[in-house]
Structure formats: C-alpha cells, structure tokens
C-alpha cells in the first residue's frame, strides 16, 4: 500500500467519523469537550458557527453523526451527540454579544432569498455580516419555514425557534413575511445580484384511492394539517385517527393527534417496520405514547357513509426481493383489513413544486421536474439563481439545508466578487500536540465504560395534555457530563513519525484494541488480513507509515481506535504523538472571522 498522506485534510477528517458524517461538518468532539469543561457558551458558538441552529438541531436533527460514531463500533450505542448539542444550547449564557454585528457598511449587493426556512436563513447568516443586503420572502408571517410549520411544539418549543431565527434576523436582514413569490421572472426583473431558492418541498403527496373525494372532509394532508395545527387554525381531531405513512411527518401527525383529542391513534405503513423512513427514536417515542404501528398494509379504499368517513380498508402484503435486491410488495391473499376511524392523516411523502418558476426563465429542470442543481456550488443553470434545502434535491432534513446554505453563500459571495464559483475554499486545519507531560495529555484520555444515558422525558399524562409541552426535558448537568465523557475524542489523532521509531513494539503491546501492526508492506486486501486483529471495516482507512529501520511498515487500522493515547504514552521516543486535528469548513469569509 502507498503510505498515508496525513497532511491531506480529508484523511484525519474521516477519522472523526461524526464530523465527517455531518453535512455541515460540525466539530463534534471539540464541542463535547467544551461541554465537559462546563463551557456551554463556547460549545454553543462552535455549533452556531457550523450548523447555525444548535438549539433547534439539538432537538430535531436527523443525526447522521450518531450511526457514524466510533463508539457504536466499540460498544452497543453511539454517544448522544444530538442531545449534547441541546445541552450546549440549554445551559449557555447570553451569547448575543458574541454574535456577528450587522455590517457597518453595506457592500451594495442585494440578495433575494425565497422561503424563510433553515436554508435561506443559513445563507443570510453567512452573507449579511459581510455587507450583503439580504431580503427574505416567506408566505408565512414568521420565519423558520418547516421548522415552524411542520415540527410540533412538543418537540421544538417556539421560544427556541424564535431565539435562533432572531439571532439571524438581527444581523440586518430584511424579512418580508406573508409574501408569496409567484413569479421567478418578476423576481429576476427586480435586479437582485443573486437569488437563493430555499422554499422547501411544500406539497404533501395525496392518496388517490376510492372514497378520497367523498370523504375528503375528514382526510387531511399531513404537512398541511401540521402547519394548521402550528398556527392554531386546528385544535381538535376525532377520537379515532388513522395516520398513513411511515416517515417522521407521520410520527409528528400521530403524536399531535394524541394531544388534540385522538384517543385511539394508529399508524399504518405499507412497508415493514425496519424499512420505515422515520428515525428509530421517533418511532419509539410514538409507541411510547400508546400509538401502535401496523406494517405491510397498503391502503385500498376510504370507506364512508353519507359523505362521512368511516374507516380505511387495507390490503395485506409481504415483501419480496428480486435478484437485484429490489423490494416488491406482494399481496398475501389474506382478507383485507379495515380500520374504522373518524379522521385520516395522509403523510405518505412530500414533493417539490415550482409552479412559480417559469420554465423559460433560464432555469433548467430535469426529467423529474426538479431544477438542475450543482451539488457542490448549489448553482442552477441560471447564473444568478441558487437552490438549497429541500428545494434543491427533495426532502432531506435541517442539517442538510444548513450545509447547502453555507455552500450557496460561498458561491453567491464569489459570484458577486466576480470569481469562479467552482473554486472552493479549502478547509481550515489546526494541528496541535496534546502532550503535556510523560503521562499527561490536555484531553481526558481515560475511557469510560458507561452505556448511553437516556434523556429524561416529561411524564406521559402531562405531556399528552398540552401540545406545547416539550416531551424531552433534556439532560441535566450531571447526565450531560456523564454522557460527554463517553466521547472518544476521535479528533485527537494518533500521529506516527517513522524516523523516530525504534520498533520496540511497546505500542503494539499496549493498544487495547489491537489496532497497530508492524509488518511487511503489501496490497491493501492482503495487509488487512495480516494485522493484529482483522480489519474488516473497509470504509475505515489503514494508516500506513514507513521510514522504519527494518524496512517494515507501521499499519494502524483506524476502525476501533479509542484515541486513548496509550500508544503515545508507552512510546519511548515520541514516534507516536496525540495531536488534535481541528478541521473547520471555510464559510463565506466574514462568518469565519466571527468564529468564537
């Protein structure tokens, strides 16, 4: 194998699994250490810099970081990264003085942002302090987009949402609420220097089966219904409710129903339980609220009497997989099953809809009627128009919207400066040895064996009584510190210098995870089979270093390294060192300077 180039920023970035998996590349171990040190405000600012909405994401993020967490490969469950983010937000001091100030001098460039959700707000946050005039348009009177209209208050209190949206709007951004943009041509005619489209995926998919029209009064589209609940237009539902769909929207629908009078609420899903799109913890929370989930049932008909919905009829199916591994739902032939109910909530997916973008205005659409968007620059085929969030590639989640926002902000800034938007700024990397003494490191390298701590919940009876009562109470300080201690500090890297090594094997002998091997070099597949312990996780790199006197190579399997630093502690020559690799994605310029 070729020796590893550890100076390439991506190499050590990949070792920090959580950060690598985060679309916004939040430096997770760094903020967890700050939490452990009781520096909640600092932890918050690290987050705010990367992901813009720490308090919101700390409650609602889809957490791509957690399945990636190394701890999950070492023991059963990953570190509760998401809920620790909330800890930073919950326990921080007033951080307003640390936020960037509105630009003292505008740079004369005007940016229009369509939609006031996370993507647009992220773009505005990055650009406004640099002097850009940002104008945000939203059909709703308040900012926040789907974070406000679709996420129930019992998961995300309004105060948290308001606070973090306000941090951004306070940067001198013009928010025009209640104004729906209905012509791209007209918007283009207003001569903005750039236009960012972050209007989400606002159309809930309908279910066109018999009875839909006849019983329409009691059949609601999930996201529209949630939005009406959010704005207080709806505050009750029938006693018996069937929710169709297996995604997070379905989970929010059923749990909201339970709080608005739904006594018997069922979720019915076409697919199996495991394949449901909803996050496992959201399914868990729904079931905890006495909401059963029925699987492998395909809705066939809405039954009705005298124009009133009486129930839903389902066909029973089973999953079969063809040679290519594609799933097919095959009727089992058993008799259909009918669930009587008063109301149905349809949450079977949502779509993008751009009726307001004239197809001849210079923005090309693909065969799925989605705009053609460059995933790196977020640029459309129109030089001045950028997309982000759900509007760009269909429904994802908030953290992706933020990541898109950062990328679009860089593109818009470069466009306005007349630079090539395809040239992207490299990430900022800071390296520092953590050695303080023979056995002392400036990070806590003692590995706790503690299992993941559960976040305390509000008592069920109380939680179901009030749709605004937040269910999760968040970690208290004691739990937060214990959970933070579970982090393995994967950003404190094991750095090896071959010239210093005397090949005494001390590191090999002490390594608790059998990560390190000194051996003859070979092809990767061959090397992986010859190590101290088998290296079967192919997505995890082998760190190969040479310059050894015997001509052998040092091979370290990064897979389950605990970053405990024992290799460096037992190394007599300092050939191993523990170095903190802070990797920060470069944002549009000014936002970087405002970093805490």
């Amino acid at each position, binding site marked *: 194998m070729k020796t590893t180039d550890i100076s390439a920023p991506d190499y050590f970035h990949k070792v920090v699994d959580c950060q690598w998996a985060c679309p916004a590349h939040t430096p997770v171990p760094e903020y967890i250490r700050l939490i452990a040190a009781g520096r909640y405000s600092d932890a918050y600012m690290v987050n705010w810099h990367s992901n813009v909405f720490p308090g919101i994401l700390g409650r609602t993020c889809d957490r791509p970081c957690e399945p990636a967490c190394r701890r999950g*490969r*070492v*023991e059963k469950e990953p570190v509760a990264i998401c809920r620790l983010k909330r800890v930073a937000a919950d326990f921080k001091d007033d951080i307003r003085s640390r936020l960037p100030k509105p630009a003292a001098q505008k740079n004369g460039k005007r940016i229009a942002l369509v939609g006031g959700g996370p993507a647009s707000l992220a773009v505005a946050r990055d650009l406004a302090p640099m002097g850009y005039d940002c104008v945000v348009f939203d059909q709703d009177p308040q900012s926040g987009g789907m974070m406000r209209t679709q996420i129930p208050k019992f998961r995300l209190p309004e105060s948290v949402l308001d606070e973090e949206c306000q941090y951004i709007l306070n940067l001198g951004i013009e928010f025009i609420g209640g104004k729906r943009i209905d012509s791209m041509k007209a918007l283009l005619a207003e001569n903005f220097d750039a236009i960012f489209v972050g209007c989400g995926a606002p159309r809930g998919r309908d279910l066109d089966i018999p009875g839909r029209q006849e019983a329409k009064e009691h059949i609601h589209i999930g996201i529209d219904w949630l939005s009406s609940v959010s704005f207080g237009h709806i505050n009750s539902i029938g006693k018996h409710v069937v929710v169709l769909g297996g995604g997070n929207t379905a989970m929010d629908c059923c749990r909201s129903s339970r709080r608005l009078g739904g006594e018997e609420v069922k979720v019915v899903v076409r697919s199996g339980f495991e394949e449901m799109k909803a996050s496992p913890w959201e399914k868990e929370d729904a079931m905890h609220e006495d909401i059963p989930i029925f699987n492998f049932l395909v809705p066939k008909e809405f039954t009705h009497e005298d124009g009133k919905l009486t129930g839903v009829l389902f066909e029973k199916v089973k999953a079969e997989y063809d040679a290519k591994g594609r799933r097919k739902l095959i009727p089992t032939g058993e008799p259909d099953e009918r669930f009587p109910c008063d109301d149905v909530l349809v949450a079977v997916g949502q779509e993008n809809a751009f009726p307001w973008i004239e197809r001849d205005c210079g923005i090309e659409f693909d065969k799925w009627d989605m705009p053609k968007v460059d995933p790196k620059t977020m640029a459309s085929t129109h030089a001045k128009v950028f997309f982000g969030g759900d509007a760009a590639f269909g429904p994802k989640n908030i953290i992706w919207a933020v990541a898109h926002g950062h990328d679009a902000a860089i593109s818009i800034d470069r466009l306005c400066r007349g630079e090539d938007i395809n040239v992207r700024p490299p990430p900022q990397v800071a390296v520092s040895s953590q050695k303080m003494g*023979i*056995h*002392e490191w400036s990070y806590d*390298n*003692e*590995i706790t*064996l503690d299992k993941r701590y559960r976040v305390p919940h509000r008592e069920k009876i109380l939680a179901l009584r009030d749709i605004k009562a937040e269910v999760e109470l968040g970690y208290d300080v004691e739990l937060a510190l214990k959970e933070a201690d579970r982090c393995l500090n994967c950003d404190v890297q094991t750095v090896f210098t071959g010239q210093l090594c*005397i*090949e*005494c*094997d*001390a590191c*090999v*002998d*002490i390594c*608790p*995870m*059998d*990560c390190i091997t000194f051996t003859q070099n070979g092809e990767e597949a061959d090397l992986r089979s010859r190590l101290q*312990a*088998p290296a*079967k996780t192919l997505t995890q790199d082998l760190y190969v270093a040479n310059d050894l*006197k*015997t001509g052998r190579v040092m091979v370290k399997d990064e897979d*389950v390294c*605990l970053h*405990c*630093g*024992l290799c460096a*502690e*037992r*190394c*007599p*020559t300092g050939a191993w060192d523990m170095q903190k690799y802070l990797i920060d994605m470069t944002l549009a310029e000014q936002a970087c300077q405002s970093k805490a």
Partner: protein
Amino acid sequence: MTYVVKPKFHHPELPKNELGYTHRDYEGAVSTLCAGCGHDSITASIIEACFELSVEPHRVAKISGIGCSSKTPTYFLGNSHGFNSVHGRMPSVLTGANLANRDLIYLGVSGDGDSASIGFGQFAHALRRGVNMVYIVENNGVYGLTKGQFSATADRGSKSKRGVTNTDNAIDMVGIALQIGASFVARSFSGDKKQLTPLIKAAIEHQGAAFIDVISPCVAFNNHAGSTKSFDYVREHNEAVNFLDFMSDRMPITVDYAPGTVEMVEQHDGTILALRKLNAEYDVHDREAAMSFLHQYAAKGQIVTGLLYVAQESEDLHGHLNTVETPLNALSAKELCPGSAALEKINASLR
C-alpha cells in the same frame, strides 16, 4: 504520574481460544516499566503463548525474584498464582513449589542480575536438577533499576551509556544452560515475537528444564551505540538458526514444506515441533555441537537465536526422585502416614 487504566474494551473481532478467552483475558496489571522496555514485549509474548495454548490461568504459577524483569509477572496472567521471591531465589522457591504440586505449569521469570549474579548458583542448580519449568531470563545486560551499571551478561568491550568500556568477561547463560544439562535451550529477542512466542509455547509443553535467554533491550540505559544489547545491534547481529512453527499433537500437520527445510521434533508428551531450518548444518539434538557453534559465532560478534537444543529424551526432577503421580500437596494423612506396621517394615529393611 497519572497512568490511564488500559480500557476494558477490546476489538470486536478478537479471536477466542478453546476456553472462550481472548488474549486480553491473559493480561495482568498495566506495566510500570519504562516506556519501550523490551520486557513488556516478552510479557506480550507470554500472554500470546498462553492464549494460543488455551492454558487455564489457574494452572499456572509464575515465580520471580527481584529486578525489572521480576516485576513483569504482575503484568501478565492476572488470574494465575504468583510468588515474587527474594533476589536470586526464584529457582529454589519454584523448585519447592514444583515438588509440592507437580500439576501446575511453572513460569520462572528472572533477569540477568537475578540469575547471572546474585542467583547464579540457584540458576545452575535448578537446571541441573531438571525441574520441570520454563526459565525465562529477560537479559538486558545492565542493572536497570540502579540506573545502568554493567551486569554479568554485558559483553566485554561493550560500552555503557556514559561511554565506559566493560572490561569483565560476560557470562553466556545459554552456554551454561547447555553445559549443566537443561533439556530445552533457546535464545530469542524481545523485538521478534514471531520467533519468541512459539519458543515459549514449546517450552511450556516441554517436560523438563526449559531455558530461554531473551535479549531484551533496556531502552533507558542500554540502547545506545556501543551496546551489544540494543535494538539495532541485536537486529544487525542476529543469527537465527531455525524458526519454530509450534504444533501440538491435537492439530494435524497440514503445511507443506519443501523437503529438507523442516524438521519435525516430537517432544516427550507427544507434541510436535515443526522446526524450519535456517542453517542447514545446525543439529538441534547435538549438545556439544551446539556449544561449539555458539562459541564460534560469539567470537564473530554474532548472536545465535532460535531453538538451540532439545533433548531427545527428557526426564524431570520428579522422574529422578521417583515421586508419586499425585501431587504431594494432594496426599492425605492416610497416605502420608501409613501406620506403625509400615514403619516397622521400613525400619527392618534398614537393619
């Protein structure tokens, strides 16, 4: 000093032996020796050997004297019996224990100070008597605990860390062991576990006095230019005569070797050692030839390693003394005191 406890987590794919243990289960406390000490590698080799042999930890007695080397039994086999004895007295304590209970595996761990100076006599007599044991000398050529004076195994002409030349002759422990009748004699290097671990396994299976001299560089006081026990010197002057692929009788021999390159050596208990010959002329059963071979190579400054001698037929102390099969400590009062009639008979035989 703050030492981190070695985390209990282990690699999820770690192999298990017949007893269901991983090699981590054969560890002891974390080493307090200097970082990089060769002794820690020997500890790792002992752990690996016991793991691979599926040794039950409660069947092992690890006995040592005084010195850096003699601290190491704390760092392996945390669930075995142990006795940290007086300086140089490991062999006599071990002999006593072995006489009392012949059923245990005896690991005697010592150093060049413990065995070539203060305990030189003990070392010689334990081997001479054929005590069934593994006698490991962790040989670094210096007194590490007292900061680097030459030990009795330091080669004449080698230099101390401060540049002083050693003017005394060295004791070659392997030479002595061969001369006084050890039935298994090997030498290895802490920096070469591939060679050392099979040797330890074979020594454990060997019935009789098995002696292994392990050159183990002292990183703090004897790993400089001018030392003949440094990592670099040993690597450059290592003359391995063979390489041992240990095989027990339980495993069929499936490896194909080119004819003439491998010798199958059957041990007393039926285990088979596959010796890969690196030096075609070297005869592992010829004690005298081995001694002269060692002398020739020592004169050239070469360090001969590998399995140097194994007796065709070995017998241990219990065999010499004709003791009963039952360990002495398991004999009951009835067996130990057969009554006045039996005493009368013995007395009569002596008249």
